[in-house]
């Protein structure tokens, strides 16, 4: 197993910059997720790590070795694609053992490694079955087995669960992560699904338009988004933005949004008059008998434990997450209280977070 280090990696296709000066490190044994919308450069980055694309500039280290211009097969990496292709004429055992047979590994060794892999994946009872009769999940486990059996330095996975229905995806998510916990292999996983990223990752890098927007743990990314893009991409529903014009003094712990005073974590750097956005997560909005902001309930969505309430205010439409026991009707007037110490402030033009006490406790690096 090994660490993967990416240094100012750039990839251009003609005029188009697919990946722009990206840097991050995947620690040894980490489950690392590259997250972003389609076209953000995550798959291109993964393909460069695999050696399926060559970078325009920058470096890639696998362990301590510079592999930037090494051929794919010279890198000790296993790539798992979205669509699993199995050899239909072979049984499960032969499918899993295939990469080893290609390398000319001795039969007895193949046998023991295939069986060990099958046990890890809990498909040892299927070893002598033909792959054609397998259920979707088991087919996927076989394909994973084929990647694991080689014991590579790292696994690269490109939306391996993208083709599955949601219920089954959730199950496979847990399985993949549990498998990772058992074998501890460095894994780089690409997805556009923020929930998948949040639930599986040790670290997440969020990409957009080829640029690394943020690189941190899931909770840091959620609590202290570095940009409005990250804030809106993570969370369901995403972060609400209250847009307003204003200037902020350094150390200010209160702002006025069109006359309404809102407390927030003390701002560390002041800004001159400009367009700003206050970022509020849905669960940081509470309803009260009085408060700085007034709104009208537009609709409610019951979700079992909680409900999402859409509220129309003078500052735009907001979504709040409150307990499911609260009964609210469309048209009802409500006052909103915001959880002051959890609010983010953004420069609306650049989209960047304005540093505040919220970021004080920050541990992970923020790039971009």
């Amino acid at each position: 197993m090994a660490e993967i280090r990416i240094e100012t990696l750039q990839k251009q296709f003609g005029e188009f910059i697919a990946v722009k000066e990206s840097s991050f490190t995947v620690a040894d044994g980490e489950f690392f997720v590259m997250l972003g919308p389609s076209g953000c450069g995550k798959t291109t980055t993964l393909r460069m790590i695999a050696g399926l694309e060559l970078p325009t500039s920058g470096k890639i280290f696998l362990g301590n070795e510079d592999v930037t211009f090494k051929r794919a097969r010279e890198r000790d990496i296993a790539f798992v694609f979205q669509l699993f292709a199995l050899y239909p004429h072979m049984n499960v055992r032969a499918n899993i053992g295939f990469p080893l047979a290609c390398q000319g590994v001795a039969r007895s060794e193949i046998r023991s490694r295939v069986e060990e892999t099958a046990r890890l994946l809990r498909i040892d009872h299927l070893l002598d079955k033909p792959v054609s009769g397998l259920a979707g999940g088991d087919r996927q486990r076989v394909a994973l087995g084929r990647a694991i059996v080689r014991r590579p330095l790292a696994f690269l996975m490109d939306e391996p669960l993208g083709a599955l229905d949601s219920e089954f995806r959730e199950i496979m998510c847990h399985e993949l992560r549990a498998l990772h916990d058992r074998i501890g292999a460095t894994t780089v996983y690409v997805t556009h699904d923020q929930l998948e990223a949040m639930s599986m990752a040790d670290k997440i890098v969020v990409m957009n338009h080829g640029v690394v927007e943020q690189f941190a743990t899931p909770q840091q990314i959620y609590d202290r988004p570095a940009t409005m893009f990250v804030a809106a991409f993570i969370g369901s529903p995403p972060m609400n933005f209250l847009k307003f014009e204003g200037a902020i003094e350094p150390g200010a712990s209160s702002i006025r949004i069109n006359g309404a005073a809102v407390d927030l974590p003390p701002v560390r750097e002041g800004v001159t008059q400009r367009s700003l956005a206050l970022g509020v997560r849905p669960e940081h909005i509470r309803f009260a008998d009085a408060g700085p902001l007034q709104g009208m309930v537009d609709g409610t969505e019951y979700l079992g434990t909680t409900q999402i309430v859409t509220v129309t205010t003078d500052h735009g439409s907001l979504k709040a997450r409150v307990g499911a026991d609260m009964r609210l009707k469309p048209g009802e007037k409500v006052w909103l209280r915001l959880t002051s110490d959890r609010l983010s402030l953004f420069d609306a033009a650049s989209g960047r977070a304005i540093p505040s006490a919220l970021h004080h406790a920050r541990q992970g690096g923020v790039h971009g």
Partner: protein
Amino acid sequence: MAEVRIEGVSKRFAKTVAVEDMSIHVPDGAFVVLLGPTGAGKTTTLRLVAGLEQCDTGRVTIGGEDMTRAAPAVRDVAFVFQQYSLYPHLSVFDNLAFPLRSPTRRVAEPDIKRRVTEIAEMLRIPHKLQSRATQLSGGEMQRVAIGRALVRRPSIFLMDEPLSSLDAKLRADLRLELKRIQAELGATILYVTHDQIEAMTMATAIGVLAQGRLVQFADPRSIYSDPDSIYVATRLGSPRINLMPAEALPVSGAPKGTHTIGARTEHIGIAPIAGGGIAGKVMRIEHLGDQSHLHVSVAGQQLTVLVDPHSVPSVGDEVGIRLNNALFFDGDGRRLRAA
């Protein structure tokens, strides 16, 4: 709008029983969602109401009238399919107007214009009326497909997973809009889905289906908090309700015959082990942002527990577990309610 009653309806395809002895009452103005996995009989039920399939036994009444043997055209229902099928050569306006221009309806052109404009406003696509259907995004196309059903003002709308081909964000938007439109029109909707979020957020009543049978029918809150069986309990809630064999965990107040104990993730209290409770060990933590899920090993069982993301123990910590509002089930998975 009108009420719909399905009374003792069964339907077989060769040897397969698709729907068995199904009875559902869809009150006027209700939004009833049929929820179940693939093969539960949801779509067949919908098609039986539409008249696209014939019942083997039982009755279907719409607005009090027996429609069991009536042709689809005379039932006054509008069907919205999963795959929106618009006329690609027509504009959005003409697509919406199409059902009204049918020779059997004879709606005057000024009335058509008024109704199409009204519906377009409601669907928030008035600026798209002159666009070709092919120039629309997926979400807009599905709005037009829904609009084509709305414009007719039928007795009942039948919708078969209309949002399932859309991406997550659009689906969330349209869920809200569909519910708003339903409330505005006072429409009666019978809606089929396998998506528990759609069922919980939109329905006035959910009918849970299993293998062609209706196993519970109630409002979303009752289905969630007061399920009749393990099957129903596992339909709603994500992560799924924790299920444990009764002998694994000592829970006071379990009725006689309890075989399985169910506890929703938010009904498990976690405290330092010093405070008592059933001993468990934290195996893994999932940080989802607004909440965190602890995976705790208790008496050989894996439990998922919902906790506040800012007061989370560490992996490997010994913790004390308490169950609140536990549900009890017998050996057949039926709910046992305390006497």
